[in-house]
């Protein structure tokens, strides 16, 4: 009994992020289109997009621990890249989405450079905020490509000759892409690279002293974040089919903050949870217009104060409690 208790204390609260649990979710989700209508399916699709947003953001902000607030910028860069590739160059869908990811990754690497030069903490935050707003100015003024403030209309997505006309059809594409990227991120975080991120976050000098190539891994983290969030932007472009500058400003960034803080910083499952909560909130709070902003802010404050691990820790504690009860009964 005592030995089991000790193991329980030592076991990190990773239960929900274990491989078996994570793979179950996409398989279960395959059945979702059976029970949704066009509207609810759209909300599910939007949630998937924000899952990627949260997962990508968390890598830099949670795991690496940098105050890189360029997430809305990566999102917009991805969306506009996909829109430009689809609209101006008539590229095939998957290629356009991949292109958005690549450009997002490059943008991420670019944003990593100031971080490498020692710009940290609040300085980095302000720098990346300025970068995001600068990008919005670019979207508005580079109107030969972006069609300016009118926004770009994205043509209907066509996959291998089939038009993805309905939300249900888009869902399968999104599910595959999101699952692949989330799984890849999970692998990355669980590998020595991921552990290096945490080491860098906790004490960069010590990490460097231990032989971790901090510069290389920092760029990698930023680039990966840019790639994932850029891909999310591409999916947004395919989903909403109207990409305009207003959608990628500070209000959008606050939504991204909400996802990672409320879900759980440095926790992959937390990003998923955060995305679900923040996408569903406006729909569920439909009858209380205007409260949603305030509720999200208060939730963020509450979590930062008393539950810094995010709402996901509640789920983990629930699972551990159930586990405890099970073992207790068995004994």
């Amino acid at each position: 009994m005592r030995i089991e208790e000790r193991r329980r204390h030592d076991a990190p609260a990773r239960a929900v992020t274990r491989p078996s649990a994570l793979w179950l979710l996409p398989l279960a989700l395959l059945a979702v289109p059976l029970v949704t209508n066009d509207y609810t399916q759209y909300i599910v699709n939007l949630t998937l997009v924000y899952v990627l947003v949260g997962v990508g953001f968390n890598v830099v902000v949670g795991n690496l621990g940098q105050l890189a607030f360029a997430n809305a910028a990566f999102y917009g860069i991805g969306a506009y890249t996909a829109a430009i590739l689809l609209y101006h160059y008539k590229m095939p869908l998957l290629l356009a989405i991949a292109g958005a990811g690549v450009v997002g990754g490059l943008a991420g690497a670019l944003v990593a450079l100031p971080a490498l030069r020692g710009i940290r903490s609040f300085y980095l935050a302000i720098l990346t905020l300025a970068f995001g707003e600068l990008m919005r100015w670019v979207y508005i003024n580079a109107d030969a490509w972006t069609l300016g403030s009118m926004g770009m209309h994205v043509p209907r997505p066509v996959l291998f000759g089939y038009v993805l006309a309905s939300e249900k059809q888009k869902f399968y594409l999104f599910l595959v892409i999101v699952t692949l990227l989330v799984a890849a991120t999970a692998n990355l975080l669980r590998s020595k690279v991921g552990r290096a991120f945490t080491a860098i976050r906790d004490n960069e000098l010590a990490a460097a002293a231990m032989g971790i190539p901090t510069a290389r891994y920092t760029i990698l983290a930023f680039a990966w974040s840019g790639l994932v969030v850029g891909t999310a932007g591409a999916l947004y472009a395919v989903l909403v089919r109207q990409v305009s500058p207003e959608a990628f400003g500070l209000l959008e960034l606050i939504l991204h903050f909400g996802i990672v803080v409320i879900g759980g910083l440095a926790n992959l499952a937390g990003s998923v949870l955060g995305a679900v909560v923040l996408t569903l909130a406006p729909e569920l709070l439909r009858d209380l217009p205007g409260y949603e902003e305030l509720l999200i802010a208060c939730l963020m404050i509450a979590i930062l104060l008393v539950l810094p691990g995010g709402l996901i820790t509640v789920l983990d504690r629930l699972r551990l409690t159930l586990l405890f009860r099970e073992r207790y009964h068995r004994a």
Partner: protein
Amino acid sequence: MLGQLVVSGVAQGALYALAALAMTVVYRATTVVNFGQGDFVMAGAFVVYVLVVLAGTPFIAAGALSIALLCAFGWAVYRGLIRPILAGPHLALAMMAVAIGYALRGVARLLWGREVLPFPKVVPQGSFIVGSTVVSASDLVVTGGVVVTVLALSLVFYATPLGKTAQAVFQSERGAALVGIDVAAFQGTMWAVAAGMGAIAGILIAPITLLYPDLAAATLIRGFAAMTLGGFGSFLGAAVGGVLLGVGELFVGAYLSSRLIEITSYLIIILVLLIRPSGLFGKKITVRV
């Protein structure tokens, strides 16, 4: 035209300087950048509106009351929300500041989101001409208001016991605690001061921009640009940076293109941080292990 640009630019820049100064106060006292400062400005203006329009308070009293209320709010925010996590990662502090600002905006939008409210008239409308330059009464009030605030702060900083405490804590928080200074109380006071300055800024800005929940979004970024240009943590830098930014924006708009006004602050932030992160008057940034 040059003279006009300078005069109007200084008046605009004074507001940016005020925002930057408030954020510098908080930064020096607690090494936190208050991302919610813009919303303190908005809150101060809204409180005055409520008092004057809904409760019929005369304007001066309403202004004073708003400053006092915001001071109390700033102190409460520090004690209740900032201090508990002050020892933690900077990320949490930044997020907390963002969330506080967002909450203030949420309240404002809930109550008054559907209208753009007129602000009670503060200043006589007139203006007078010096040479070919027009100086409006509002320009004078804003610049004057900011100058008075800065002078008052300087007076407090250099000539009062509170100021001595501030200098001590700014030099070494640990050392100050060791000699018996109540650092927590001091930091709370500084947050109160910054919030009060936000209220002042709100009272000065709102007659110009009118009152709506997103009032201060622009001011926040410009405050950052002013702080960056002047050098993080430097009061003189914040003031000078603000004025330079205000004048710079107008020069860019008049001589280059009005489309570039918006990105002046972004470019200043990016270029300064990449080329000379300590800005004009700031200390060199050291990374503490």
